């Protein structure tokens, strides 16, 4: 199947899923959630105010009209203003995206680099005591909550030792990268490396058992060359796909880091929105992150095909 037809078919298949996401979010916020007019009107609400707010939000209309309003909001990317701060929702997402990316891109790159390097090293000495103790250690490291790492790390390295600022953010990209993002990135890595390491190790071990590795050994190639050139190139296929598929989860995965270190990113904004019952922000975030997830999955499939021409697009 050629690329164009594949793309068209996949995009067509996304339509019902996307529709489902929209319906799910709509069902949650317009049906399960009860009447938001009471939240908005505050404590001293009189019936007139409530009727007024209900009219403004459009929730006095029939459900199908409300659904249409919601769909129009999604298509035009105009979710109105935040209920808490009156800031336009689109502006919130535009300004909060950069801090999240400044935090997440270094984390993703470092995580991949470290996990792949260590996985190669561990796979080279598979079965030894080093391999097994590292794997056991990664299970333990994974089991401690990110919360504990953040609380302890912030206290010890920022508060007691003063190596990093306790929290904060600036307008300067370089300063953010070299000062404010360092500790959050390191703490995030502590938790995220271990699962990737275990996964990549199995990818590499799968390749080491293949015939071409035996052939390479028979040719007299050094073990390092086999690992770094032959095995890594083949293991890179699932690894790259895995990294790409993890992207959207990363976008929201930094909830805790952003909150603790007062980084004005999307994750922190969502937590604030949940605390303040700021529905427009949560609705917009859910729908757009779902779209991003689907796009990333599609990209992953394409990349998979590009890296490994044996994989047929179906």
């Amino acid at each position, binding site marked *: 199947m050629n690329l164009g037809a594949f793309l068209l078919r996949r995009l067509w298949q996304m339509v019902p899923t*996307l529709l489902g996401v929209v319906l799910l979010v709509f069902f949650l916020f317009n049906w*399960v959630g*009860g009447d938001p007019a009471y939240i908005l009107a505050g404590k001293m609400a009189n019936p007139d105010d409530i009727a007024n707010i209900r009219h403004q939000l459009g929730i006095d209309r029939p459900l199908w009209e409300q659904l249409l309003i919601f769909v129009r909001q999604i298509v035009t990317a105009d979710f109105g203003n935040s209920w808490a701060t009156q800031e336009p929702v689109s502006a919130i997402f535009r300004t909060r995206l950069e801090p999240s990316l400044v935090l997440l891109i270094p984390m993703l790159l470092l995580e991949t680099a470290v996990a792949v390097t260590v996985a190669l090293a561990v796979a080279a000495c598979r079965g030894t005591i080093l391999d097994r103790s590292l794997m056991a250690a990664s299970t333990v490291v994974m089991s401690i909550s990110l919360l*504990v790492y953040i609380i302890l790390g912030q206290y010890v390295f920022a508060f007691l030792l003063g190596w990093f600022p306790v929290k904060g953010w600036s307008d300067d990209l370089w300063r953010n990268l070299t000062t404010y993002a360092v500790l959050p990135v390191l703490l995030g890595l502590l938790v995220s490396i271990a699962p990737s390491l275990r996964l990549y190790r199995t990818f590499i071990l799968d390749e080491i058992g293949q015939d071409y590795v035996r052939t390479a050994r028979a040719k007299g190639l050094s073990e390092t060359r086999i690992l770094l050139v032959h095995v890594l190139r083949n293991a890179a296929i699932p690894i790259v796909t895995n990294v790409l598929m993890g992207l959207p989860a990363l976008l*929201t995965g930094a909830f805790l880091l952003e909150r603790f270190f007062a980084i004005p990113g999307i994750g922190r904004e969502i937590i604030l929105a949940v605390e303040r019952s700021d529905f427009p922000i949560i609705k917009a975030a*859910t729908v757009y992150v*779902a779209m991003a*997830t689907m796009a990333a999955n599609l990209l992953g499939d394409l990349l998979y095909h590009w890296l490994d021409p044996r994989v047929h697009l179906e």
Partner: protein
Amino acid sequence: MNVTDANPSPGLWTLAWRRLRRDRVGMASLAVVVFYLCVVCLAAAGWIAPDWTREVGVNYAPPVFLPGDQDETAVPLQQTSAVAAPVDLYGLKDPLARVLDAIRAAHPEDQSRPAEGRRLTLILGGDKWGHDILTKVIKGSETSILVGLIAALLATALGTVMGALAGYFGRWVDDFFNWLYGVFTAIPYLLLIFAIAAVLQQKGVSTIILILGLTGWTGVFRLVRAEYLKHKSREYVLAAGAMGASHARRMFIHILPNTSHVLLVQLSLNVVGFIKSEVILSFLGFGVPVDVVSWGSMLNEAQNELILGKWWQLAAAGTAMAVLVTAFSLLTDALRDALDPKLKY
């Protein structure tokens, strides 16, 4: 002809149990998990840690094993305010001094040590109000583990029924459930949980269980569906159908036991995942209500206490959680190895 077999071949579970028994790490982690479950049962029955809200120690009572400077750290808050006048009054008279004296005269018993009857040290220390942290950890374990277990049971049951229907009936039923699966996996897990928590205004243990259970079924669904696809055309199922077994009977009496090894591993994985999610939710204040203690709410309190140098609540809750999650993860690995010896990592 004698049909009964004198020496029946061991079943799947017997074999798995034998393999698990040989796995030393697996048995050790099983022991730890069983220990936690016993503690949870005893706490739920009220035999241990009956009341964590009792203020048995002084404020921030340190743990007993802490050497030295005990009386310095153990000074109760009320006492410091009564004894020392930290503010320099610059010769001004306290305008409320007369009122205060009157109150003191009216309640002579309150002036003496307000912490009377409270212990200066506790086994694992005390929190801001002097609650015993050991009791809190036990109660917190009860909440967190029960939430994880019940939510995992709910999610596994949901995923099993949906996966069974989708895999067994195929066609439009399969399409429908696959669509539902696609929708739920398109939204990142934590974001979905937060969205539901924002919508459901009431907090409570049952609310968290519902949220986690209703969102966490996707992993089980995928695997169970694949199992049913494989099994539905096997001879034993066809034979059951030929003997007149109904669809429901074929699905849940005949096929289900053959997928139980998948279910057990998924259940175990879900418990770990849900415990972690519950801790994050409760930490952020979207989880358990204030009158319930969980590991997440303890970590939330510990965050502020740490700045004052009171590390014991953080250590207690963090360790309790880390030990259980490690043991549960190792047990899951061991279970997977024992139940499916073909898988080799």
